[in-house]
């Protein structure tokens, strides 16, 4: 596969603070790469460096085989960017906003018109073409923001946390749109701190913390890094100290945590743990409201690797 983004030893400092440290990775054509990390981990800084918006101290960035610079217009015409914050003009309608940004890439008026209409359809804003941004809800505004970034049909798309502060329905719509772009062959670099999104759309994930790569691989590969294989949660249960001791001694149990009425048990291995636990609870006459089992998430991986939650 052809590498469309190549980053070697990228280092970016803000005075004495190292935002990105010796970062190296590449993205292959048609791949969706997720940059996952908590706020301040260096995701947006990395994207801004890749786009040549930020100067950086060290490293080489190549896009489509060419060294990226702010004046490399040949490369820039194949890039689309969706920033974390809304980047549209309040004075222009939905159609005009998309047309304006598309016009920075596409000179041909007729072709641009087709592209704009396609983008509007892609994000589902057909009924809002003449609306001004202030007349749109937060979710619709996010969709407009995305349409402005992808209307010119870029080969590479940078999405910097596009679903922050979006309602579930709009989020689903946005993620479906991204999957649609992927189907059409776009290479996507996606930053987020929502692990569910990464698991849903990314082929490969890089987990960042304090500007450094702490793990990388496919979502499945990363989850296999976790020591635990299953997590069982029991809600509304009342336990004594002796009960907790008994649970800890059950087969495969790694760790037990009990907080007021919620019990969380993590297992080293993930087979037949739930039926055995239910049987034990019945035998001990321990009552509860709800019990459920989960596979480890990327958040658990992150927690194991760094000792903190992704959303911290």
């Amino acid at each position, binding site marked *: 596969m052809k590498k469309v983004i190549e980053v070697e030893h990228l280092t970016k400092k803000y005075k004495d603070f190292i935002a990105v440290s010796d970062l190296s990775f590449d993205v292959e054509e048609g791949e969706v790469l997720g940059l996952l990390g908590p706020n301040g981990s260096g995701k947006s800084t990395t994207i801004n460096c890749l786009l*040549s*918006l930020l*100067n950086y101290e060290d490293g080489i960035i190549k896009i489509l085989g060419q060294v990226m610079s702010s004046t490399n217009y040949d490369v820039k015409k194949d890039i689309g*960017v969706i920033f974390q914050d809304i980047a549209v003009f309040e004075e222009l309608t939905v159609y005009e906003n998309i047309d304006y940004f598309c*016009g*920075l890439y596409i000179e041909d008026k007729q072709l641009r018109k087709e592209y704009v209409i396609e983008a509007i359809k892609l994000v589902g804003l057909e009924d809002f073409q003449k609306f001004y941004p202030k007349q749109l809800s937060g979710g619709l505004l996010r969709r407009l923001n995305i349409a402005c970034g992808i209307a010119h049909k870029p080969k590479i798309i940078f999405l910097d946390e596009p679903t922050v502060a979006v309602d579930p329905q709009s989020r689903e719509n946005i993620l479906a749109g991204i999957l649609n772009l992927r189907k059409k062959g776009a290479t996507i670099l996606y930053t987020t701190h929502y692990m569910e999104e990464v698991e849903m759309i990314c082929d490969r994930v890089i987990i960042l913390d304090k500007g450094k790569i702490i793990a990388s691989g496919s979502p499945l590969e990363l989850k296999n890094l976790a020591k635990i294989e299953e997590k069982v949660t029991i809600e509304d249960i009342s336990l004594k100290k002796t009960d907790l001791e008994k649970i800890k001694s059950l087969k495969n149990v790694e760790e037990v945590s009990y907080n007021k009425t919620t019990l969380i048990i993590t297992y080293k291995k993930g087979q037949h743990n739930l039926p055995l636990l239910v049987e034990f609870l019945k035998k001990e006459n321990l009552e509860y409201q709800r019990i459920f089992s989960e596979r480890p998430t990327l958040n658990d991986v992150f927690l194991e690797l760094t000792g903190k939650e992704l959303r911290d």
Partner: protein
Amino acid sequence: MFKHNFIYTLKILGKNKVLIFWTFAFPIILGTFFFLAFSDIENNEKLDVFPIAIVENDNFNSRMGFKETFEVLSDDNNEDKLFDVSYVLEEDVALEMLENKDIVGYILVLDEPTVVVAKSGINETILQVTTDQILSHEKVLEDYIRKNGNSRLENFVKVMMDDYSYVLDNSNKNMSYTMVEYYTLIAMTCLYGGTLGLTALNQNLANMSQRGKRIEVSPSPKFKVVLSSILASFLISLIGLFLLFLFLVFLLKVDFGLFGGHVVLLAIVGNLAGLAIGVAIASCFKVKEGTKLGILLSVTMLGCFLAGMMGITMKYVVDKNVGWINMINPANLITDGFYSLYYYDTLTRYWWDLLGLLIFIGVMVIVSVLALRRNSYDSI
């Protein structure tokens, strides 16, 4: 791309209600206010001839200069006639006329001339001041004769008259306070162009807005985007000026006389200077847009204040003490250019002011280009 960005910048700026108010509506509202406030003052400014009395006693008749001056000032053939003089022989008669309000006041010459009035007022003051001035001139001449005799008296009188004539000949005889206010208004509108330039440029800068980031990552060269945005804001600014001129000429019937073309030329260059300040501030300061606007308004207002737009005395104070400030102050160069059209018969000073503005614009452009030349930022 140039045309695309130019047209959309026109749309974006044209739909910005705040900017449109300050660019289009505010100068017209202020112009209307000036018209309502000052036109009456000007109409009432012409002095009316008013009646006075002079007690024609021996003392009065012996002061020839004093007597002749009053004869001139009450001559029907004199364009500057000030008084209708009734000559009376007894003070009692003058007093009775004053009590009957037939006259504003009367002059009685005993050892020295005395002005007698019944109350304080404009006409009473004019009578007093005129009398004092005549006495002052009389005293200067007396002093000269006492020191020099009658030799070269004629020359001395001529020099005195020449000094007086110099002032008259070099100022425009149709001087109007309202016109000065309209020129000030045009100058202020020119400088308001800065807010348009600042806003237009800010939207293109990645360190200023998310839209700017999106524009800077596009394949459109920064130079083209910035230039087309500035041209669009200049056009809007010019439309604002054009509307103001239409309003002044056709609705308020302001007559710019022979200098209409010069006024328009200076307004266009002044507008460009205003725009250049806005662009330079937008380029050089890495602060929020509101702060940049604050800096722009502060700089503009300070410039206007020092140029005497809020009180003409300040202009002279600055000219006298720190003259170089007014030489680099665009507000002063604009207003001074307008005043020079008004006050002087020659255009030399006008052209110097225009040249000064062009140099100022050049400097602002160089500063802006140097600041904008960078394509990446240390932080955004």
